[in-house]
């Protein structure tokens, strides 16, 4: 919390408000809190007073002109502030200024000095540093001379300022003016307007800082909540784009889907949109994310606008995801509300506060399209932008489901796609008399991812993506896929049989050829041998002939001389 130079601030202890005003209300000065009946003025004032007395050692005086102190104590008792204890320890005192016009007559000049004396005495008694005047305008109905009253009220505010009291003055909203009696004229330092509107039968509380002298402050209307934890304001629009970026990956709970994202899963802190038509498995995928997060020892939060916690647990058990045990161990918090239960701002406020309290690392909002019924489109978008910003600023992964009405619609009602880091498109397509679920990773910023449309199936062990199957006429799913697979198997078997026959034939031919070859070789060898023999015989014959010739010559020579 940074303090603006020059102005001291008194923290109010109202969640969000002190951040919005960079520290709280102007210390030692009066602040006007105005609004219509029942908008939370008194609670704002009480919270401011109690917080000061309890946490900042600044005792407080509650000057009530309307309600009895006992009623006030009872009213805030439900918030667990321990007001009666603070009263008993003299950290908070009540001054009940009751003016009954019926027993009062005015004759001549008067002033409100007695009121000053009473306040002075009460302040001194407990050493008060903070004062609440609730609602000083009641005096206008009791006294008939407004000129005197105005002068006295102005004097009272100056007097409180001189005494250094940080004062909250509540005022009822008037027609066309901030307060009925124009109190804003007297309070120049800080004016806060509370509003309580009903639109489409749904009420929204909003807070706006009309004026805060010496401090830069947001000028927007901020939604605020009053519930069992008191008063809290959500300065959510103040968030920017300067969030920390995570490199770490988190699993989607579907191993096959993790595999489609190179590196295994989405980046921590990213915002992922899961869109699809009814029954395409959006919630189941959300449950799978939750299951993976809880199994990793982290906390997850599931905001459901369609199902109750027990219904969700039962349904998810059928696909092997046991969310019940995570709820039991406190790792999962399931918040279910009807979209029409609150206004958009209130939903936002509830979501943000639940997240801030529970500090999960994964938030699932199922479905965001439910808000379409409780606000116009720009409001829905603004609200979701705040949720996304808030999640990112806190490094929380967000999963948003969106019900599309058109198959494969690549657009969302709120024009949200640009806010999202990841987008998983779920299809539920009819083909050949059956519906088959398909999943497509439309977008995954910063992650190389598969471009395939994958069929995904549920069974008792969870969600599985089937390997991509491309038939001759495109990707096939369901029984068409199975039929095609069978046909291909049959075809392959036939091919195998034909090939076997051909192979046998060839082998046989080969064997025959080899046999013929053997025969020819034997013939060749025989011919060669015969030829050799023939040659040998020939040479023997010639020798014999030569021999015979020589012998004959010799015998002739012996018979006579030639």
């Amino acid at each position, binding site marked *: 919390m940074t303090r603006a130079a020059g102005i001291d601030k008194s923290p109010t202890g109202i969640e969000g408000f002190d951040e919005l005003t960079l520290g709280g209300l102007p210390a030692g000065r009066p602040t006007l809190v105005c609004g219509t009946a029942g908008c939370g003025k008194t609670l704002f004032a009480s919270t401011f007073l109690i917080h000061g007395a309890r946490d900042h050692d600044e005792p407080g005086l509650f000057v009530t002109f309307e309600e009895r102190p006992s009623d006030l104590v009872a009213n805030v008792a439900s918030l667990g502030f321990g007001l009666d204890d603070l009263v008993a320890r003299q950290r908070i005192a009540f001054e009940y*200024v009751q003016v009954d016009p019926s027993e009062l*007559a005015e004759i001549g000049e008067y002033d409100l000095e007695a009121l000053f004396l009473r306040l002075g005495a009460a302040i001194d008694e407990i050493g008060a540093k903070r004062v609440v005047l609730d609602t000083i305008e009641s005096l206008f109905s009791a006294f008939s001379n407004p000129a005197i009253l105005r002068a006295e009220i102005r004097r009272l505010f100056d007097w409180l300022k001189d005494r250094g009291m940080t004062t909250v003055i509540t005022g009822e909203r008037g027609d066309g003016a901030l307060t009925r009696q124009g109190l804003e004229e007297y309070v120049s330092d800080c004016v806060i307007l509370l509003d309580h509107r009903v639109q489409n039968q749904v009420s929204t509380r909003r807070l706006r800082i009309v004026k805060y002298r010496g401090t830069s402050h947001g000028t927007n209307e901020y939604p605020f909540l009053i519930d069992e934890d008191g008063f809290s304001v959500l300065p959510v629009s103040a968030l920017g784009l300067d969030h920390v970026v995570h490199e770490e990956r988190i699993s989607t709970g579907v191993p096959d889907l993790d595999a489609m994202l190179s590196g295994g899963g989405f980046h921590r802190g990213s915002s992922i949109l899961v869109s699809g038509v009814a029954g395409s498995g959006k919630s189941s995928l959300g449950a799978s994310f939750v299951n993976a997060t809880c199994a990793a020892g982290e906390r997850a939060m599931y905001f459901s606008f369609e199902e109750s916690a027990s219904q969700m647990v039962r349904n998810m058990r059928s696909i092997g995801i046991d969310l019940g045990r995570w709820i039991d161990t406190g790792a999962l918090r399931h918040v279910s509300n009807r979209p029409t239960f609150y206004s958009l701002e209130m939903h936002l406020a509830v979501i943000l506060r639940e997240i801030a309290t529970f500090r999960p690392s994964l938030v699932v909002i199922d479905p965001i399209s439910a808000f379409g019924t409780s606000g116009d489109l720009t409001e829905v978008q603004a609200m979701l932008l705040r949720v996304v910003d808030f999640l990112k600023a806190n490094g929380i992964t967000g999963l948003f489901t969106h019900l599309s009405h058109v198959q494969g619609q690549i657009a969302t009602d709120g024009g949200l796609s640009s806010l999202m880091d990841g987008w998983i498109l779920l299809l539920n397509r009819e083909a050949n008399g059956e519906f088959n679920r398909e999943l497509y990773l439309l977008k995954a910023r910063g992650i190389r991812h598969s471009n395939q449309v994958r069929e995904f199936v549920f069974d008792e062990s969870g969600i599985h993506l089937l390997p991509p199957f491309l038939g001759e006429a495109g990707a096939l799913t369901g029984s068409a896929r199975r039929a095609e697979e069978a046909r291909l198997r049959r075809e392959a078997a036939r091919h195998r049989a034909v090939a076997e026959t051909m192979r046998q034939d060839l082998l046989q031919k080969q064997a025959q050829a080899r046999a013929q070859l053997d025969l020819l070789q034997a013939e060749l060898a025989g011919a060669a041998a015969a030829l050799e023999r023939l040659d040998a015989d020939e040479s023997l014959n010639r020798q014999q002939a030569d021999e015979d010739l020589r012998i004959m010559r010799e015998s002739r020579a012996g018979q006579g001389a030639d």
Partner: protein
Amino acid sequence: MDEPLKLTLFVAGQTPKSLAAIRNLKTICETHLAGKYLIEVIDLKEHPRLAREHNIVAIPTLVRQLPVPIRKIIGDLSDSEKVLIHLKVGSE
């Protein structure tokens, strides 16, 4: 008219309005209610706690303690006719 009027006048210090109220009240009572009244003047500057006890906001305030019901008149009591009417003297 058996019971005497029991009146308490709350003032704060010696301001002109307070002094005027005291003076006016005394004149009215002496003129119209001689012997039938009891006046107590309380200076809240000295006894601020009594302001809460009697739930006094404006100064000066005249409180008719008796007869009941309690009635309060604020102002410097400059109109004696009105004061008498509001004290309901003579009508009860």
